[in-house]
């Protein structure tokens, strides 16, 4: 195996995940929130890859393929919803869409 220790890979994935989470929590635009979600998904994918290469098993990569499929499906649904939201409310601001409170 190449010289990158697992800890570094996992740290990178954690950093990416936290960046994505901050994106989801901080951004108000739905599109940007979806993109941040993608970052979080990819961060988890990276963690699987790192773990897979550490133990020399293909399961990690298979898991990544699964996550990739899931992410594309999620983007499809998410973008569709975002489009619909925009048509209906003429905004993509998540904070403005708070009609279901209480």
């Amino acid at each position, binding site marked *: 195996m190449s010289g990158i220790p697992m800890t570094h890979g996992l740290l990178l994935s954690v950093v990416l995940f936290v960046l994505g989470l901050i994106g989801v929590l901080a951004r108000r635009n739905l599109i940007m929130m979806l993109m941040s979600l993608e970052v979080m998904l990819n961060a988890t994918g990276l963690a699987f890859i790192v773990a897979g290469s550490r133990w020399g098993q293909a399961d990690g990569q298979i898991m990544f393929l699964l996550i990739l499929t899931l992410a594309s499906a999620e983007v499809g649904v998410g973008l569709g919803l975002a489009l619909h939201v925009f048509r209906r409310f003429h905004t993509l601001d*998540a*904070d403005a869409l*708070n009609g279901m*409170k*209480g």
Partner: protein
Amino acid sequence: MKMIELLGWVPLFPFLGFLMLALAGERFSKPLIAWVGVGTVAVSACLAALIGAEFLTGTMEPCGLLAGYWLEVDDLVAPIGFYLDALSVAMLFVVTGVGLLIHVYAAEFMASDPGYARFFAYMNLFMSAMLVLVLADNLLLLYLGWEGVGLGSYLLIGFWHQDPNNGYAARKAFVMTRVGDTALLIGLFLLFTQLHTFDIQLLMLRVTSQWVAGELLPVTAAALLLCGALGKSAQVPLQSWLPDAMAGPTPVSALIHAATMVTAGVYLIARTHALFIMAPSVQFAVAAIGALTLLTAGCSALVQTDIKRILAYSTISQIGYMFLALGVGAWSAAIFHLLIHAFFKALLFLAAGAVIFCFHHQHDIFRMGGLRKAMPLAFWSFMIGSAALSALPFTSGFYSKHEILSAAFDASPGLWAAGCLGAMITGIYSFRLVFVVFFGKECPVIETRLDWRMRVPLILLGALALFGGMLKIPLDSVFPVLFDHEHGFDAVAVGTAAAPLIGLSIAAWFYFTGRFSAQSPADSGLARRMRIFFFNGWGIDALYGAWVVRPFKTIAELNKNDVLEHAYIALASLCRAGQRMVGATQTGNIRWYASSMALGAVVIIAIGWLS
């Protein structure tokens, strides 16, 4: 097939009539309503006549019929069972026979009423319940009928519910009889817990074999049953609902508040006479209450001006005679008087109804007068009815009252004297009514034509009231014969025969000297106060008003904001506060949800890590 097997259909037919009229009566045409309402009663009257004929021509062995089970819990079994002996046959004849005639009469009397279907639905319900009451072989089923007739009575007194006074009268009747019914129910519980059965015959057998006469248990049980009978039969001190019950239509007063329901108390005591024999003190109380009632109600009847209230007080008084008879152990005399009373009192009420009908709901006797020529049928009905009511010799009432008074004389001359005095008062008030309404200056009558449906019942009941004294229902097979010596033509018989004649003479003397009038010449001092006192039924209503109704109202007023309710209000507001707190976290902001999820995940991971 033996007719007895059809016994269950006797109460069932009126009930079917009730169901049909209650569910679809509003859509029926008037003739159809009358056919259903009267027809179902006619069918059960025919069945009752056939069953009774079979019973009386046969061996007259009591027999039962088990129609099914109502309740079955452990050893508590309440069968829907009917029991036929001479007593229930007599009651069956009264209820179906008089009931049928009154239904026929009502078909015409109520013809112009918009609530025609409702009226017959209630009447059929009442008939069904009354038949269950008299035929039941166990006390629980009897109690079902007992409450059923109470319900029917309530519905029919308040039949013209547009007038709040009628509703008040209905509620009064219901609540006052309920006082007695509660005691009766406690009595049933006592009998069941002590003797483990509801079956009346078995119960009476166990009462005589397991209990000792005069001890606490039989006395308590008998007293509780007596309270129930007092309420239903309008005896002192629970009598004041009956005069107000006259708010109902006149056929109702005839059927329920004269001929059948109010005699249910007499029937109950006669049915459970074995228990009363075991409690001599209570049995004496029955006689004393009867004597007291017949005198007080008689005095009240003397001064009433409403034709129906006179008859109502006379009903209370006559039931007092029946209680007197029960109290002195003359069981069959009591039932005989019940039978005869049903005939002549129904006749009097129906004749009064005819007068009221022709005067367009005028009740005041001093606004009537001279109707002898205009309404001969009503006049003769009233003459026969009043003669039987006051027990003039050779009318039916004479025979029954004679039996009662001679039995009372055997028990105690004091009771006999009260009975004779009552008979004299009866003579005065019944002929006062006849003289004022049918003699004197003629009043213009609005309408005098009576349909055949009103005439036939009057004629038949008149015949029964005249000749009913010859009926012999062999009640000795049910009751023990306590006295056997016959009074010949002695002082007692003379007293019994003379008392009503004296009453009649006094009434005639008062009338022809002009002392019966709306403005009585006795309108001064003591006489006036006595008059008002009697008129208001001996102030019983005022007494209850002051001692029961007003304190109750005061308590209700004090506790208007129900104390107990505050606990529930606190519980409800606690729930609402919790809902508001939890609901506040539901902001609708998606980023808020995401942050709380993230925070939650961090907390859970931290807990997992640290532990």
